[in-house]
């Protein structure tokens, strides 16, 4: 097929612009400082998550607990595939109190190491492994925090999240021959992956809410308050202020739908990050999802990464 020279030139320039934008977005070296801040928050969230399992560890995961493996695996087996994604995880083989406590202690150690920044990449990978161990052992009792924690830990294991505010950084600073932390491609890629994933996650949460009538008529917050068994505190006194309940409901949905679109605009970004603070802090007493809300609030840090520096851009261009 023949094409006019003009068309070829236009297509070539369009593809070049797209490729250049792609490369600039993904392959600009960045400082790992936002990742390091996020590492601390993710470590605390992982620690809270593991601690929340402590009391009922034997009851949920023990061989003679409420959900033994031989009952769980057929239930969670994929009907469309012969491969069971959950079967090979070690907690399906560990059921004694000693084995479960060993796994739990190792999980807690990994979360503490991640928070403190001790062998940060390895501890992020280890914390992810233990989160996945619990998730695949009994997926039907998992909540909101596990999927978010999983992808955050995954990206923290990619980027050098121990470059700042960590024991790793302190050890390096004591070594006069070690270079200071610089710009890194891995940090840039990890931050960009987090930014895109978090935006998609917000969109998913916002769209999920649009399926429920209560999120349209402004009574969703009341529905959460009215759940007498699972609410952490009793806010039913707000029944007399329906406009507040309506506003609170609409604010949650609009924020979750707006963030994935507007966060990429440098003017709206600070505004959204400021709004995220009351939104997530208010969801804690409303829903009780403390580790999840704290983690989502801290994920705003990945959008505070500085714009690509001149040095980084020069490195990429050269």
């Amino acid at each position, binding site marked *: 097929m023949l094409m006019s020279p003009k068309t070829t030139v236009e297509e070539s320039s369009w593809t070049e612009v797209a490729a250049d934008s792609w490369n600039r977005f993904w*392959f600009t*070296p960045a400082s790992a400082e936002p990742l390091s801040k996020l590492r601390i928050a993710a470590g605390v969230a992982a620690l809270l998550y593991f601690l929340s399992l402590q*009391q*009922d560890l034997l009851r949920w995961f*023990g061989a*003679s607990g*409420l*959900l*033994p493996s031989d009952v769980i695996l*057929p*239930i969670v087996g*994929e009907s469309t*595939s012969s*491969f069971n*994604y959950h079967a090979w995880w070690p907690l399906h083989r560990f059921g004694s109190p000693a084995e479960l406590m060993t796994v739990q202690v190792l999980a807690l150690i990994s979360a503490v190491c991640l928070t403190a920044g001790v062998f940060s990449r390895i501890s992020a990978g280890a914390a*992810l492994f233990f989160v*996945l161990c619990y*998730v695949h052992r009994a*997926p*039907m*009792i*998992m*909540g*909101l*925090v596990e*999927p978010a924690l999983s*992808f955050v830990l*995954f990206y923290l294991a990619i980027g050098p999240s121990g470059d700042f505010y960590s024991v790793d950084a302190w050890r390096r600073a004591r070594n006069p021959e070690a270079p200071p932390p*610089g*710009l890194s491609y891995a940090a840039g*890629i990890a931050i960009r*992956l987090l930014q895109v994933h978090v935006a998609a996650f917000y969109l*998913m949460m916002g*769209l*999920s*809410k649009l*399926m*429920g*009538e*209560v999120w349209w008529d402004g*009574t*969703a917050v009341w*529905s*959460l308050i*009215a*759940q*007498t068994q*699972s609410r952490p505190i009793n806010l*039913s006194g707000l029944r007399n202020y329906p406009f507040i309940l309506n506003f609170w409901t609409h604010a949650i949905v609009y924020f979750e739908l707006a963030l994935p679109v507007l966060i990429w605009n440098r003017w709206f970004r600070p505004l959204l990050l400021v709004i995220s603070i009351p939104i997530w802090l208010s969801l*804690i007493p409303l829903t*009780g*999802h*403390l*580790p999840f809300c704290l983690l989502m609030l801290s994920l705003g840090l990945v959008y505070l990464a500085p714009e690509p520096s001149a*040095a*980084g851009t*020069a*490195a*990429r261009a*050269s």
Partner: protein
Amino acid sequence: MTDSPSGSAPPYQPPPPPPPLSENLRSVLSLVIFIHLFCVGCVLASNARRSALQGRLVSIFGIYTKTFNFDPDFTPYHLTRGVASDDSAIVVYLYKDYLADPTKTPANVQMRLPDRGSNWLGERRRYFSLGSLVHSYSQPDNEQEDITAGIAKAVATGLMHEHQCRKAVVEIVTRMSQPLDPALLMPGFPPDNPTAAPYDIRGYSAEVWIDDDGNVTATKRTATGENAPRAEAG
């Protein structure tokens, strides 16, 4: 304290930028990033509902997305749909004798799960998730008896071992929520006490017992009067 040889500290030198990535490495990384985000996008886009195409794609990517838990897999990020079944507790009546008739014999132990834990860290919510799952799969339009019986059997067996009992009745009790406008409450539901007994709706119920040979049997109770253990089919 001694000065440096030059008499003053050397000026701060920012670290040099890393060497550029090769074209080949960038291409490989671009492909990996694209595939990863495509998989993540597909599973996130199909969390609330799933079309046949999305279901097929999710099953293809499953080995990656499910292994790393990128797939929320219908996790309730909507927080609430405003229905009463959000809070489904599991009530278990335990009997020492597996031949005991629950209609005539008082339970030796009665438990309402969650019986411990905090609402701040999600400990109690795990019990509600399990109760909601059983409640959901016991509805006539979505009935999956193998799942409900399997969970009832597992929960009852675990608690029977915990309390040295041989028979259990497992019930899912859903607590209805009050509407925003108390005037909409039906008669019999006290507006000033949202935890009163009328708000608790009994749903799925099953009897589970351990016979003399150690076999565990579960039967769904389809009517209130059907209580005695039935002979095992087959």
